[in-house]
């Protein structure tokens, strides 16, 4: 019987083509949008982790409270022993200290007088020690536009746009004017080794990346660091695990009232990430619900018109001794076949598009001009195992709902009424 229904369905284009197309489009969009949101979320988490929050981050309690003002006078001290201890306790994680700093970058002319000057957002990380993970975390080689990655002390990278604004070439000298940990003025000379563009608006406006040893010397921060970032070895953020580590770490210092005690926080807890993620989740859930609703309506309508046209056929089948329940079930079977077929095709198309956009991405830099979010300008879709099944939810739910509702028309009509349709 199923085979019989399937044959009929495939031969009657009007009964299969339009509904399948509807399902294909709906499922395709669902898969696509899901992957898109997934990609945006991944991108957002990934960029944030690399440039800003780590998967977990340790700051002093006082520093954490005013973290956006980069209060280096409140930075952690005794960093080396802390990192060693962390490495021992969590050997699967990567721990790396960073110093953020603000200041002016001054470009001198041949006489040593100021030629150009601009405010700079600096980040000091371990660039030079052997086996450092930071060049990989920042993907410096990929981000490099001109020049090269720093290879010796006193070499820095600055963002390409910033370099253009200041008319700086690789090899030029730049002077950083900033404040030491104790609050006095700091001046240090660097050589611009290269320029970079991360494709993350917040990082590309006026950033400078320096080796942490140079900055420690310049800002008088020996064995100090504003923050210590922790990363999972595979660079995939796992919130439960991060929370667990954080709880464990903080338990050791929980009762200590000292302002300079190190406290750990997860990626999601920093900078309102939780809310953003919840919003993204809600948004993707909403998209799914809307698609199910709209598609159900469309298919219900198609089903309704379909069975209106088919009342003749249904009359014959009743006369041949088929029960209404049997016919109703067969309508649902048919719609499920349409649902499965449409979902398969829709998922395939949606995945193909998603894979394409996973590889090539879509530039949304123009939208991010003034954004301070750490999100890559090139949005990429991200295909996950869920992408393969997510489309079947609206695909099957909508066809099932649509046909179960429209199919009840059979019950509402008297057998003799259905027979009357035959006589026209």
């Amino acid at each position, binding site marked *: *019987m199923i085979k*019989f229904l399937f*044959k*009929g369905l495939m*031969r*009657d284009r009007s009964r299969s083509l339009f509904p399948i197309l509807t399902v294909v489009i709906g499922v395709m969009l669902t898969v696509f949008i899901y992957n898109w949101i997934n990609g945006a979320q991944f991108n957002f988490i990934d960029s944030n982790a690399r440039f800003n929050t780590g998967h977990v981050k340790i700051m002093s309690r006082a520093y954490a409270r005013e973290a956006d003002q980069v209060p280096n006078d409140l930075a952690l001290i005794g960093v080396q022993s802390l990192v060693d201890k962390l490495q021992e306790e969590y050997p699967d994680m990567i721990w790396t200290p960073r110093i953020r700093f603000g200041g002016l970058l001054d470009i001198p002319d041949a006489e040593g007088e100021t030629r150009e000057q601009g405010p700079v957002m600096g980040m000091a990380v371990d660039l030079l020690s052997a086996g450092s993970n930071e060049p990989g975390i920042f993907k410096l080689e990929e981000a490099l536009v001109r020049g090269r990655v720093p290879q010796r002390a006193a070499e820095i990278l600055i963002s390409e746009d910033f370099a253009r604004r200041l008319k700086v070439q690789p090899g030029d000298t730049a002077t950083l004017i900033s404040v030491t940990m104790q609050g006095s003025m700091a001046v240090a000379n660097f050589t611009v080794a290269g320029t970079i563009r991360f494709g993350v608006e917040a990082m590309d406006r006026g950033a400078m990346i320096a080796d942490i040893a140079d900055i420690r010397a310049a800002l008088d921060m020996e064995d100090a660091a504003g923050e210590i970032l922790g990363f999972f070895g595979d660079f995939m953020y796992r919130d439960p695990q991060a929370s667990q580590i954080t709880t464990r770490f903080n338990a050791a210092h929980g009762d200590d009232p000292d302002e300079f005690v190190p406290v750990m926080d997860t990626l999601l807890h920093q900078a309102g990430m939780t809310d953003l993620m919840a919003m993204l989740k809600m948004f993707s859930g909403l998209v799914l619900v809307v698609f199910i609703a709209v598609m159900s309506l469309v298919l219900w309508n198609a089903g309704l018109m379909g069975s209106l046209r088919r009342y*003749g*056929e249904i*009359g*014959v*089948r*009743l*006369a*041949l*001794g*088929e*029960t*209404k*329940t*049997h016919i109703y079930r067969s309508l649902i079977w048919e719609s499920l076949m349409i649902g499965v077929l449409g979902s398969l095709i829709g998922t395939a198309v949606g995945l193909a598009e998603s894979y394409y956009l996973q590889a090539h991405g879509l530039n949304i830099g123009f939208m991010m001009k003034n954004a301070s979010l750490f999100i890559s300008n090139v949005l990429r879709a991200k295909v996950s195992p869920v992408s393969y099944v997510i489309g079947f939810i609206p695909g099957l739910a909508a066809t099932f709902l649509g046909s179960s509702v429209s199919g009840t028309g059979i019950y509402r009509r*008297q*057998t*003799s009424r259905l*027979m009357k349709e*035959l*006589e026209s």
Partner: protein
Amino acid sequence: MENSYLIETRDLVKTYPMGEHTIVALDKVNLKFEKAEFTGLVGPSGSGKTTLLNIIGSLDSPTSGSAVVMGRKVEGLSHKQASALRNHHIGFIFQTFNLLPVYTVFENVEFPLLLLDYSAAERRKMTMVALDWVGLADRTRSKPAQLSGGQSQRVAIARAVVKKPALILADEPTANLDAENSHHILQTMERLNRDLGTTFVFATHDEKVIDYLRRKITLFDGAVAKDERMEPQRPGGEKR
């Protein structure tokens, strides 16, 4: 008692509400049909022929009175029981053929057997036998749209007889056919009636059909006006 007749109606009444009035489609019809009859219901348009066939065929139920078909009271059957009665014992033939357009000739004839849980091999055999009866064994793969009216009606007959029902109800089976095809169809049905003992009840105003009948029941305004035994007039129509 009632089992001795294939069909028996007692004071069968069917009315339709029509605004303030009621339309009386059947007015106290009392009829008995025996096995292997070849009977026609005639009468002017609106006299209740289709209504009577539909009630006998358990597609409709009477307003009052009773119709007993093969020992079952039609008015007391649930939807499911009525389906089972039609499924096992009754074949329908319609004026407009009503083949399922997306299915082949073979699949159309096979359809009633699908509902009866025959094995694929049995279905195949029975379908071919039925198509043989109507002379269309060579058109199994055709679609209804590729058939002439006469051929379509023969497929419909094959579909009605494939499960060898005791009773076949035919509502104006020749109304859409030319003379030659009508005769062909009628001869086929007559042969089935003779060979298988299938009871045929027609609704018709076609003179050609009337020539083949052995019993003619005339309805007028929903009541039985005349009930005559007759000798088939057609040379091809043989007596039993």
